[in-house]
């Protein structure tokens, strides 16, 4: 599987990458800014995500961003993480010039053209998002507190990306304009153009469009905090209006790019994959004490997160589930793990990789994730195929690493359950 790309670096610091995938019959733009919630000042939590919303509010040239592209069959989306903010747009292949011009326009003008009434409306929308995504869901509060419990309130990762009602309401218009001007500069941006394109032509078009933007020298340098695997607290317990219990075990693991992450990813699969995951089989099928067994690994720039969670059937099953997680890790750490098990995980990873490449949306996300700490795609395919070379000793070592380092235990119990 070849992933061929072409890259150029503009004089203003912006990096542009093109990747042809003619099978998709569409064109995709992914514009990545090296700014996320980790860059927020303590009195401005949620500003990165709020600015993501505001980038769609239009400029004097393009008063309605969606109305400008939708008639051509194009659509857009965006996300904000702790490390980055990304703007995605796609459409029929002939809309590339339009999409490029729209991105240039909003990078140039959004900070000055933003209207206060639009800011007020989007503030309401984001606050609705907090209510819908967290307050309406059982244990939403627990999820909002987890990062602080894991990393500490003073850590750049130690607050929720979405902010809070209070923090959002305290953000001023001046702070928003300043944030956009500071971070939405070409020397802080990478553009990926993919899909049914002629790569060189697309590269030339993008170069011409973005070359006129000026770089910004006002960005605060991103200094990583001293890395530690130790969570701030060891247990977080939230009671909520819910009918079920919840348990998750979260570790701080090394940052993106660290060689331990590959075996950790396979280990999570070995434990939690539906059907053959050891914890899935034990908790859901054999012991019947939990449902919803899930595991995940989130690579991030400064610290990654590994999580194993489940819904214990009863209050007394919380301890059983927690014990089972550590017991299975002990088993693996002591070498009780079979090659068949490892082969299952590798096959599943291979399938996941193929499915990601097939869908341009997923392929684009993988490539954008890579671009967050690489300047070229050299080694991209090999990195994802490296799972093939993970050995049983690597898995054993990964389990030993997890057992050596304390996790955060997050527990949710219904208000109706006795304390």
């Amino acid at each position: 599987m070849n992933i061929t790309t072409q890259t150029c670096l503009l004089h203003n610091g912006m990096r542009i990458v093109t990747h042809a995938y003619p099978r998709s019959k569409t064109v995709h733009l992914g514009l990545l800014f090296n700014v996320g919630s980790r860059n927020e000042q303590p009195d401005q939590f949620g500003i990165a995500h709020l600015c993501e919303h505001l980038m769609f509010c239009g400029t004097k040239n393009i008063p309605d961003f969606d109305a400008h592209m939708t008639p051509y069959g194009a659509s857009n989306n965006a996300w904000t993480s702790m490390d980055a903010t990304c703007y995605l747009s796609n459409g029929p292949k002939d809309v590339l010039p339009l999409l490029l011009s729209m991105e240039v326009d909003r990078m140039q003008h959004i900070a000055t053209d933003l209207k206060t009434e639009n800011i007020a409306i989007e503030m309401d929308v984001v606050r609705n998002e907090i209510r819908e995504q967290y307050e309406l869901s059982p244990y939403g509060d627990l999820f909002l507190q987890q990062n602080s419990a894991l990393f500490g309130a003073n850590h750049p990762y130690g607050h929720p990306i979405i902010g809070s009602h209070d923090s959002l309401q305290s953000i001023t218009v001046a702070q928003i304009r300043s944030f956009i001007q500071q971070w939405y500069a070409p020397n802080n941006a990478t553009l990926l153009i993919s899909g049914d394109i002629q790569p060189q032509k697309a590269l030339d078009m993008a170069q011409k469009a973005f070359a006129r933007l000026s770089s910004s020298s006002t960005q605060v340098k991103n200094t990583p905090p001293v890395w530690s695997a130790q969570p701030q607290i060891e247990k977080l317990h939230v009671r909520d209006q819910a009918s079920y219990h919840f348990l998750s075990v979260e570790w701080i693991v090394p940052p993106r790019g660290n060689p331990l992450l590959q075996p950790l990813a396979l280990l999570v699969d070995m434990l939690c994959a539906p059907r053959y995951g050891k914890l899935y089989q034990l908790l859901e099928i054999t012991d019947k004490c939990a449902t919803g067994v899930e595991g995940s690994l989130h690579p991030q720039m400064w610290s990654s997160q590994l999580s194993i969670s489940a819904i214990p059937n009863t209050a007394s099953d919380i301890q059983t589930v927690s014990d089972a997680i550590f017991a299975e890790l002990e088993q693996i750490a002591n070498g009780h793990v079979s090659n068949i098990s490892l082969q299952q995980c590798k096959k599943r990873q291979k399938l996941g990789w193929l499915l990601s490449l097939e869908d341009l949306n997923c392929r684009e996300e993988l490539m954008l994730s890579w671009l967050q700490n690489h300047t070229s795609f050299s080694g991209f395919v090999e990195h994802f195929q490296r799972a093939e070379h993970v050995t049983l000793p690597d898995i054993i070592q990964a389990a030993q690493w997890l057992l050596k380092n304390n996790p955060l235990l997050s527990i949710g119990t219904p208000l109706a359950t006795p304390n």
Partner: protein
Amino acid sequence: MLPPIKHCQSTNGWHIYHCQQKYLPIFSLRLLFTGGCLDAALPGLTRLTDHLFLRYLHTISREKIISGDLHISSHAQYSILSIDGLQEEFTDVLSWITHSIQNFSFSQKDIDYVQFLTQQDLLHGSDHPDVLAAWGVEQLYWGIDHPLRWGARGSKASIRQLSKDHIQSSFERRWRNVKGTMIVVSPHTTTDILQHCQTHLPNSTPQKPLAVPHPMPQFGDFHLPKHDISQVELRVIRPVFGFEHPLYWGMELGTMALGGIFYSRLNQVLRKEEGLTYGASASYNYYRQNGYFQLAVSAEQQKIQLAIEKTIGILNDCAHHWSEEELEMTKKNLRQQFIDLLGTNSSLADIMESCYFEGKDPCQLEQYLSQAFALTQHDIEGAMRILAASPQILLLVGKLPNLPISIKQLTLSKF
């Protein structure tokens, strides 16, 4: 747009719809087993039986090297087994499914546990206002005595009544006396698929599914209290028509323009202009001869009255102001959605499945989709006139302020 989709029938009775895609060594398989919750002896029986069977499948595959997640979904007329996997394991997957069907067994302990899980699901669902809203819509649209009023999940009472005999009978009828259709997207040739089906799958006898009885909607304004949340879920339902109606595509496109894309009338007003909601959407849900249109909005309690007024206003106005520009914009967005849907094996298999479910020939999929692009303003206005004139069900889930409408209370015990 599409590579050819071929139909054949195996010597062991399976209707097969196959699209060859050689780009990657992966397959997407959908096995449709005729017989669903519509003809179940009790509400919830189909899903509980399928859940038991899925757990059995998960148990016995433990030692096999099989990639890909397997799902079973229980519907009114079918149960559908779906799996996406590596090409090299295709025949192993078919053999595994056949072996499981032939050897499936369960104990009273297994039944007790799955009944417990099902009851837990019902309990957990009521924690989520959007789930409660969906249940309320089912109850109100289908009517109190309709077999689909509980969806596939059943009620607490009906789940308690399910016995080993019920489950055994349901499994025999739907999974062992197979009335199956295979939909597959894979790099194999159709000849190979046919051969694999004949070698590895059980015998099947084709049978059409039961027709869905007409709904008996309860119209009016309803409230399902949920006092521990700060948002209110609003649902507005209007019965329209099913997919056999000549204005079916008019309704699909109208729904998209009203609330199916980000730049829709609903989002423009409720989110962009008023900031009332993070997400508002519209959908069209249908069977052969009946269907309903739904608007869904989540808004802050203090602003729910304004959200209701704006939403109803958009709906009452929906038969008017359709320009060529809006129609063309919607068609272009639909075209992009189709391109996306047809771009992966899995989503292509899903759309072939939908086509089959609607009684259409999946081999004519491209022709069928192209009907959407031939629509005129007249078609969309015709569909929207029916929508605008239809009586409605309005459902609010949450804690309400005083509202100037007469509301009937629904209670959770009904679920």
